[in-house]
Structure formats: C-alpha cells, structure tokens
C-alpha cells in the first residue's frame, strides 16, 4: 500500500520535474527518501533507540497554549528516558493544520507522529497512516482500554490509531440561567417534548436578549442522537444512510417551531456568536442556557465564567436513548512512510500508558483511555474534572450497544447541515424545500464516499 502512495508522489513529481531545472538527486524512490528528514540513510534497518543510534522524529498536533506546553513536557520526558531520540514538535492552532498535513502527505514529507481527529478513516482509506497492528501487545499495550475505543480506530482488522482522550457529545448548560428562570435542570431521562417545554418556558421567563437554546439543527452529533432516539441511524457499516426524508423534515421542523416560539437563538445572532468557540459562545457569556458541545471542553470553558457550567445528555425518544457511546476525541497515529516505526510505536505507548506522562498530559485531550492513568488523575481531579468523568461514565452506561459508524465525509456533512439550517433560519427556503436539497446532497456525499 505504501507503493500506491509513492506512485502518487512520483507521478506528481514527474509532472513537475519535466521542467529542465528540477534538481533532484534521488528521485528513484520519491516517497521513501526525503532530504528534509535528516535521518540516516540506512534507516531501512529500522534502528531502535536501544542500539544507541540517533533517531530523529517529528510530531504534529493542534491545540491551545495549554496542550502545547504539556505535550512538549511529555516529549522532553520521553527524550530523557530514551537517549538518542529527538522528537521535533510541530504544533499550531487548528486553523491550517489539516491543510499543511495534506500538503505534506501529498509531497511524501509528513511528520512521523500525527494527531488526528474524527476524520481518521479518510486517511486510512488513502493509505497515509501506518498499520500499528504488528506492535500491539509487544510495544503498544491496549489491554487496559475499552474495546470500543480500540475498535473505533480499527479498519479491516488493522489498528491505525491510539486514542489519546475519550470524549462525548453533550449538551452543555449554564446553571445560572436555569436558576434565574426558576426552572429545574432536567435529569437524564428526558424527551424531546420535555426539551421543547423547558425551552419555551425558560425563554418566556428569561426575557428579551436571552434564550434557552442554541439552534442545534446544524449539529451532526445532535442529529445522529435524535435519529437514534427514533430508531433510525445517520449512517452504518454498509455505507448507506439509514433515515428518510420524513425524519429530516421532523428534525428541522422541530427546530423551526422552537425558533418561531422565540425559544432558540435567532439565525443572525447564532452566525455572529457561534457556539463552537469559548470566546464567541453566549452560554459562557450567560445569555443562552444550552448548547451542544463536547464534554472535554467543560474545564476550559468553566475558567472563563463565574456561572456554573454542566453537562446533560441529549433527550430520549420512542426508541430510548440515542446517545452515541463515548468516542475517541483524538488519536495519535503514525505516518505510513515513517522510517522508525518501532520508536514511533514506543512513543505512542508512552503517551497513553506511562504514568508520569499521563500525569503531565492530564485531561488536555479528553479523559485518558488507560484505566490506571485515569485512576491516577481521578485522585487529584477538580470538581469540574469530576463532572466530566461522571458525565462520560453516565453516557457509557446509557448509550445503547450499537456499533457507531462515523459519517465518512464529515466535513462536508457539517457544511451541508449548516447551510440547510441557515436557509430555513433566514427564511430563504421552506423546511420542505430545504430538506429536499439536503437529501439530494447527502446522497451525493454517500456516492462520493463509495467512489473513494
């Protein structure tokens, strides 16, 4: 499979080097030898750190200040324990991370260690990532892991990534607004009718400029959970969609009704203050009570407000809870063409299993997957951390035992749902017409994913 990739690179290279000036010393094996990675050229023998040979790796991740700091500390610890190994960090915010990674992969110059998100499957399908199966058991120990987490990065029986943190979709709420409205915070067994009632009741009491809910109709996690609660699925292993137009109409109409009742944030306010970032969301500012978010955001966001924030599950429906089991938030993966797969595997294991590294990294990527690390962290957890642990345990207990399959071209689904929501929210299209377009485009996305 590495062959195919190298072929892709050589092909492009060839097109480019048709020009007379292309000065290339070693284009015979374009994918595998990169002058920029200053490792020894006899690397094929894959030297291990133990032999004392110098190994230079690169590791890429995205994140905030805090994660950069902690990850670098963990890398330094690994280097001190493994003399001869140096790992050059390549970190940034999320903006541009994937663009750069794609460029590097296209040129055969990607970092050895790569932090990946939910789109891991696309990269597996395109043979960009290293099969870690040969190292499982010997170098990478996963006995302590929830098998669902291992499964989520396993494709065709091969493991391509190791979870760095467990996460879950959630409804994040601002308790101060519930108190202000005099409405009790709902419990874990609530339905979509309850949500509607709570939202309308709260919005009436909170008055102008405050809202009970963000418009969740564009949130693919919320939609997946809704479909689950009504016995349907967004997508499944067979590569098909498992919902009908009627389901999508119900979903978008549910939110259109709430919007008409003044219970959700109007479309223009939502565009101006998207709930996706801590500095723009009105939940942190105390103007909206509930939004969708991922559980691991709780601790960081709580630091920005005096109000107490908390986590709720999505409502249930006739088919029970549609919650998706806790998922991997981020994976550590290896580049398919890395020259030091064994050292890379060793570092992967270090990140998730080393007790010292575990304490250094903390919850910066979600709840650590290994039980012993989690226990060590639980002993020193703050109340906010504890709330997140409790919530994730609750989801694990509640979620139905279905095999959840991520929608393949997730970025495009997100963009499509956002567009559909906006067309309805700004009254550019009726629910029915917007959903017609939505269904056509979803089917195109599924066709595209099949063609890949």
């Amino acid at each position, binding site marked *: 499979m590495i062959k*195919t990739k190298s072929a892709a690179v050589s092909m492009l290279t060839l*097109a480019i080097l048709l020009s007379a000036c292309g000065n290339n010393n070693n284009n015979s094996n374009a994918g595998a030898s990169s002058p920029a990675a200053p490792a020894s050229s006899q690397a094929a023998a894959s030297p291990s750190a133990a032999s004392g040979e110098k190994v230079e790796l690169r590791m890429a991740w995205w994140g905030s200040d805090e994660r950069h700091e902690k990850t670098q500390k963990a890398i330094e610890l690994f280097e001190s324990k493994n003399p001869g190994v140096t790992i050059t960090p390549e970190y940034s915010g999320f*903006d541009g991370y994937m663009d750069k990674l794609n460029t590097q992969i296209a040129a055969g110059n990607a970092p050895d260690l790569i932090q990946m998100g939910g789109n891991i499957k696309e990269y597996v399908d*395109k043979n960009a990532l290293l099969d870690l199966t040969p190292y499982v058991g010997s170098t990478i120990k996963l006995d302590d892991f929830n098998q669902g987490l291992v499964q989520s990065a396993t494709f065709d029986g091969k493991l391509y990534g190791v979870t760095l943190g467990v996460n879950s979709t959630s409804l994040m709420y601002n308790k101060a607004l519930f108190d202000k409205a005099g409405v009790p915070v709902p419990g874990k067994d609530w339905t979509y009718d309850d949500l509607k009632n709570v939202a309308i009741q709260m919005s009436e009491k909170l008055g102008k400029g405050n809202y009970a809910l963000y418009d969740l109709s564009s949130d693919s996690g919320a939609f997946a959970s809704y479909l689950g609660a009504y016995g349907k699925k967004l997508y499944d292993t067979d590569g098909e969609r498992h919902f009908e137009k009627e389901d999508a109409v119900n979903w978008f109409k549910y939110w259109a009704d709430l919007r008409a009742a003044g219970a959700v944030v109007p479309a223009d306010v939502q565009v101006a203050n998207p709930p996706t970032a801590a500095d723009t969301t009105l939940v942190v500012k105390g103007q909206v009570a509930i939004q969708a978010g991922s559980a691991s955001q709780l601790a960081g966001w709580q630091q920005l407000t005096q109000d107490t924030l908390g986590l709720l599950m999505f409502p249930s429906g006739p088919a029970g809870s549609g919650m998706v089991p806790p998922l991997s938030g981020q994976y550590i993966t290896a580049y398919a063409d890395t020259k030091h797969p064994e050292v890379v595997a060793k570092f992967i294991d270090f990140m998730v299993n080393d007790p010292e590294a575990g304490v250094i990294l903390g919850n910066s990527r979600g709840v650590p997957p290994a039980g012993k690390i989690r226990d060590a962290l639980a002993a020193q957890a703050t109340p906010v951390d504890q709330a997140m642990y409790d919530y994730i345990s609750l989801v694990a207990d509640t979620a139905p035992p279905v095999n959840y399959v991520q929608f393949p071209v997730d970025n*495009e689904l997100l963009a499509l749902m956002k567009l559909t929501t906006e*067309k309805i929210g700004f009254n550019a299209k009726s629910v029915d017409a917007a959903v017609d*377009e939505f269904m056509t485009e979803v089917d195109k996305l599924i066709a595209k994913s099949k063609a890949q």
Partner: protein
Amino acid sequence: MQKYKTYLAGYLFLLPWLIGFLCLTLSPIGASFYLSFTNYDLLTTPKWVGLDNFRSMFTDDYRMIDSIKVTLQYVFLSVPFRLAFALGLAVLLNQGMKFLGFYRTIYYIPSLLGGSVAISVLWKQVFDQNGIFNDGLALLGIQGHNWIADPRFAIYSLIGLSVWQFGSVMIIFLAGLKQVPGELYEAATVDGAGAVRRFWRITMPLLTPVIFFNLTITLIQSFQTFTKAFIISKGTGGPINSTLLYSLYLYIKGFTFMEMGYASAMAWLLLVIIAIFTGLLFFSSRYWVYYSDGRD
C-alpha cells in the same frame, strides 16, 4: 550585430524572472492544468476524468451559482469604490499642506492590519448588532441590522472592508503623482491655467498609466480575494454562501473537501474569466492610456 547585442541585454535583464518562471512557476501551473482533468484527493494518485470537473461545475454544483454571483457583486462594487477613494485621497494628500506625512500614515494604517487574525474581531466590533456602526445609525434614528451575520448584508461588510483597506492603491497613486514633472505645472500656471484645469489637462493624462495599472491589478486581486472572506466568515463563506467568494470556495473544495482536481478546474475557469476582463482592459488602454515613452 547591434541588434543581437540588444536582444542579449533584454534577456540578461529578464534572466532572474525567466529562471523563476521556468523552474518554479511553469511546472506547477502545468501540473494544476493536468489536475483539472482528474479526480485528485491529495492523498492518492490522480484519476483521469476528462471534462467531468468542468461539466459538474455548470450542472451539478449547487454552491457554484451563489459563489459566482457573490464574487461578481464583490468585484463590481469594491473595485470602483476602492479606486475612487484611493485616487481622491491621493490627490488631496499630495497638496503642499502641513502634517501630510501624518495623514498619509493614518489612512494607511488600516491596510497595515492586512489579513491579521484580529480583523475578524475588529470588524465585528463595528458591524455587529451591537457594533458602533449601528450606534451611529441609532443617532440618526435608523434601525440597524446585524451586518456581518445577515445573508442580505454580509457581502457589503466585506466590500466595506476592502474599501477600508484602500491604502496600497492610494500609495501607488501617490507615487504616480510624484512622477508628474513639476515644471509642467509651473509652465501651466504661467499660462494662467487654474487648479481644476491643471488637474484635468496635466495630472490626469500623465497619471493614466498608473490608473490603468491600479484598475487592472485591483480587478485581478478582487476576483481572487480570499483572506478577507476567510477571516470574516471563519472559513465557511456563510451565512448561506453570502460571502462565498470564488477563491474561498475553491479553497474549501481543494483543501477541506479534498477535491483538488475540481479546485484546479475552478482555478482555470477563473483564469479564463480574469483573462477576458484583463484583455478588454488592455484593448481599451490604447484609447485612453498615455505613455510618455510613445510606445504602445
């Protein structure tokens, strides 16, 4: 013999550009031309699909129409305003007044912010529902809108941003005004021509090469505007594609949706569109642009 020496001199002066063109520019352009006929997801080998990309651009892409409409609106509103603003201020700030250096700097500062990440926040402070622009309208008794987040108005806030950053165009005009030889003015003043007459009879004709340059370049750059739309819409082109400028859509297709073959096809279509407009400008230039070197 003299002729060949001249040829040689021409190529020697052109050499750096020629090397760059042949080594660094030509082959990537060739590659992108080839890719426009393929299905290329960045990670695996491009697959030849013939004209499929071009066909689906016109028949099967529900965002494309929106994107083209928005881009044309942006180009045809921002180019004239930007140029008029820049030329007006350049002429104004080229008089022999006090503090001119200071004023020029003030008017240039917005352009210094360029594509800074801070722009998205700053623009929101001005054009948000609670922004200062609406405060100003309220003083006049006008009810404002959420200018950035409302699909009816979002493109205008983007055009406003482009006009606000007119500084670079102004600088080129200023440089052009400086090249007008002072003695021509002196001669005209002696002949009794007034300021307005001097402007139209001397300044404008001598400034036409620079006006032509600014018009051409602003047009090309406006068709390619990316960063502003990317920053203001947080990379989405929303709400409802109202800021989905062509280059932003191309970028989303190429890098976010990983359809680089399609994005390349889009780029070549844009090139053709821009080339037509630029060609028309060059054709028209022989009727209104005056070069002192007397060559065409």
